């Protein structure tokens, strides 16, 4: 999702950077152009529905991670702490509140518009609800809330789906109509959903290209760039669909040429380790963090973080024939809405499908949606795959919680452990 492209860039990265900064510019002009702005989150975002009302989405957690990459988050977090937010609270929230308190200048330096509506369409992260409560106090604007049932037993039941559709019909759509003064246009929504599905096909193709040896992509550090448009404002748009077509072509070329992933220091020439990563990345030291991997020839072949905005690689596609049901399924299918056993199954499947040498967990204490139960996942995955698991700890956007020496030490130790096991062969 970042738009700060690495120094060595793929074409698609340049395109993505333009799209994202273009969206910030569009947000800055929104009020002058009479457009409505809705704040919403990445997981469970109803972009097609909003776009069908000509609404521009603004995504606070994207702003936070962008600020993190631009070294702005530390100051915002201190600002939020001055206003009474404790040190242990989700740092996305504090970064956002701090940015707001300092004038709401977005990461690209343009002012962000105030929301006409806060649309909470995912409650799998409890913090989101509290976050919007705080924003509601600040902006005194209407809130639409979609309660999303948790997949406690690993399934989406029909009555769950019915419950979400009913809320879409009685809560979300009427509020969007009220804010924009327009009537809901189902055909526009269907058209948008068709564009989503096409982009989703291409994204899955790109993510699955990591099955090749060498993998042409890094599915975590590169992956966060690839998911940028589809997880933010561009799902269901022509622009978004075109981006994924271009990306797919680019990756095809890399596969044909037998090339490895592009890192900020050029193409990775030797793939020494194939890893699966669970958990979000650290944004404040993103480059440094990435370097710790590519310096050792470690490539991430699959990651769970790139599924927070949808598990397309498990078969889900937005379906224009069932517009509200598909939105309901989308909201319930985000990665953090999965039960712990389902998450363990998913990572195990990734390890096998992508022939990984191991899996690593980046645990972010302030993000409970991810971190609760991660050590248990580690043990279970070690048992099931017979591969060593690694465990590191950092934070999303609080630069104080990235201890480079400690993390590097753990990553190196972990990779050397894999290497040692590999050269020694299986234990007797």
């Amino acid at each position, binding site marked *: 999702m970042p738009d700060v492209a690495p120094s060595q860039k793929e074409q698609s990265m340049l395109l993505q950077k333009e799209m994202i900064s273009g969206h910030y510019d569009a947000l800055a002009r929104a009020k002058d152009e009479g457009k409505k702005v809705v704040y919403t989150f990445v997981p469970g975002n109803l972009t097609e529905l909003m776009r069908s009302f000509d609404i521009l989405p603004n995504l606070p957690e994207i702003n936070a991670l962008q600020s993190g990459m631009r070294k702005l988050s530390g100051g915002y977090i201190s600002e939020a702490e001055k206003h009474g937010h404790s040190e242990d609270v989700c740092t996305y929230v504090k970064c956002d509140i701090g940015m707001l308190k300092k004038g709401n200048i977005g990461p690209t330096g343009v002012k962000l518009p105030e929301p006409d509506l806060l649309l909470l369409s995912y409650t799998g992260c409890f913090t989101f609800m509290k976050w919007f409560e705080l924003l509601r106090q600040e902006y005194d604007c209407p809130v639409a809330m979609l309660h999303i049932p948790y997949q406690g037993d690993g399934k989406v039941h029909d009555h769950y789906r019915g419950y979400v559709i009913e809320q879409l019909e009685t809560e979300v759509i009427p509020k969007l109509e009220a804010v924009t003064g327009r009537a809901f246009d189902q055909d526009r929504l269907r058209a948008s959903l068709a564009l989503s599905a096409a982009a989703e096909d291409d994204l899955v193709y790109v993510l699955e290209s990591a099955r090749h040896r060498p993998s042409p992509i890094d599915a975590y550090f590169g992956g966060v760039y690839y998911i940028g448009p589809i997880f933010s404002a561009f799902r269901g748009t022509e622009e978004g669909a075109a981006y994924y077509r271009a990306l797919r072509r680019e990756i095809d070329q890399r596969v044909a040429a037998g090339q490895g992933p592009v890192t900020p220091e050029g193409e990775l020439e030797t793939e020494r380790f194939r890893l699966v990563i669970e958990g979000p990345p650290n944004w404040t030291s993103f480059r440094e963090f990435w370097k710790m991997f590519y310096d050792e020839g470690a490539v991430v072949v699959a990651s769970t973080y790139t599924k927070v905005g949808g598990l397309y690689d498990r078969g889900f596609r937005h379906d224009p024939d069932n517009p509200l049901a598909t939105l309901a399924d989308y909201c319930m299918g985000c990665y953090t809405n999965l039960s712990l056993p389902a998450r363990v199954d998913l990572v195990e499947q990734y390890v096998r499908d992508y022939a990984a040498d191991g899996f690593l967990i980046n645990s972010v204490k302030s993000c409970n949606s991810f971190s609760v139960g991660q050590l248990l996942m580690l043990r279970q995955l070690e048992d099931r795959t017979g591969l060593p698991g690694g465990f590191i*700890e950092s934070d999303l956007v609080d630069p104080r919680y990235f201890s480079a*020496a400690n993390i590097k030490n753990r990553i190196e130790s972990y990779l050397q*452990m894999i290497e*040692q096991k590999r050269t020694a062969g299986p234990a*007797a």
Partner: protein
Amino acid sequence: MDVCVGIDLGSTTTKAVILDSSQREIGRGITNSRSNYEVASSIAREQAFVQARFNLTHQALSEDSRLADLEERFLPVLERNFRIQHYLEQLQRLEAALLQAAVAPRHRDQRRNIEPVLETILAAMAGRAPALFGALAVRKSEFFRDLAAADYMQLAEEAADPKGVTFDTLSSLFDQAILPVENTGGSKALEALIDSALDTTLVALATRLSNDIELLRRAVETARAVRIDEVASVGTGYGRQRLPFPKEQIRSEILCHGLGAHTMFPDTRTVLDIGGQDTKAIQVDERGIVTSFQMNDRCAAGCGRYLGYIADEMNLGVHELGPLAQQSTFHVKINSTCTVFAGAELRERLSLGQRREDILAGLHRAIILRAMSLLARSGGISSEFTFTGGVARNPAAVDALQHLVNDNYGEQEINISPESIFTGALGAALFAHRTAREAA
């Protein structure tokens, strides 16, 4: 002879271990890490090579049956003579550095008085050297800084004059001078010091060994002439990136501690290492290969430095803490493993009238509790369980660990080697040996 070297650059001390081609340890060295890793590494390495040389000499003597009974009389004297000469050489450099420091403008008024005081102190220190390294001498530390500081400060106190050259002046001069002395190698190569120690020893023993002196000299010369070729080296520890080794010769200390512990105690399955700034819980398989590990994150609370800080707060030496804590008779619960908060808690409890030894026992338990949580996270404790790192030398920490291990995992013996501080360096040397074998 071909040897492999392992160097462990810890945050507190730097260790070197030398193995011969059959993986037998023939030398080791240790020094404090200070701020200059490169110097620390070269000093520890030099020490290890000197010891290797003594070992070769020992071997040469023991191989000749005619010399076998001389060995016991000769070698310890040789080693003592070497250490005295080494110490004297360091004192000379200390004196030069002190005189240099006294040139600073702020000592202008006193400079003429300072010089003779320093000369007197240093002469007295040199005079004490033979006793310091005497056959039965007990030294609290093997580091030059500690040995020199103890004598210097005592002599400075006696020589100080509140109206002239004050103790503060003398002590600040020492603080200034000790750094360059520690941070540069000696002017004489250590090998040359061995030669002169040898001469001194032979002269001293000449009358007592009259018949065998030539035989002895030849055996020693033979040992001295053996070429020691370093065929591989591996660095580890916190400062490993700063070692002058190529990347492939650097191993994580987790792997080195795992392999080192396995070598010391071959049935080891779980290793706990508490070092200066980190605590590691490591699981190894029957070959010493690491299968999982956990480390403290972000903060060094509950590591060796915590004890160092507490020792400073109490005006004690780190080595005095454990024995004192063992005298505890009352259970005091310390909640904080944050080093700074623990200092505050310590002062508060002292002010409430609680006994030092009880508080100290509580502090030791607090550290071990944190280690227990890391052990649990890494997969628990499986037999055999080996405890390594500087803190393994602290008896109160060991007691607390034993107690908590028994409570949580059932009766379980803890392996602790008196050489445990060298575990990481030993592991590194074994990796070096492996590298050399693969290359051959």
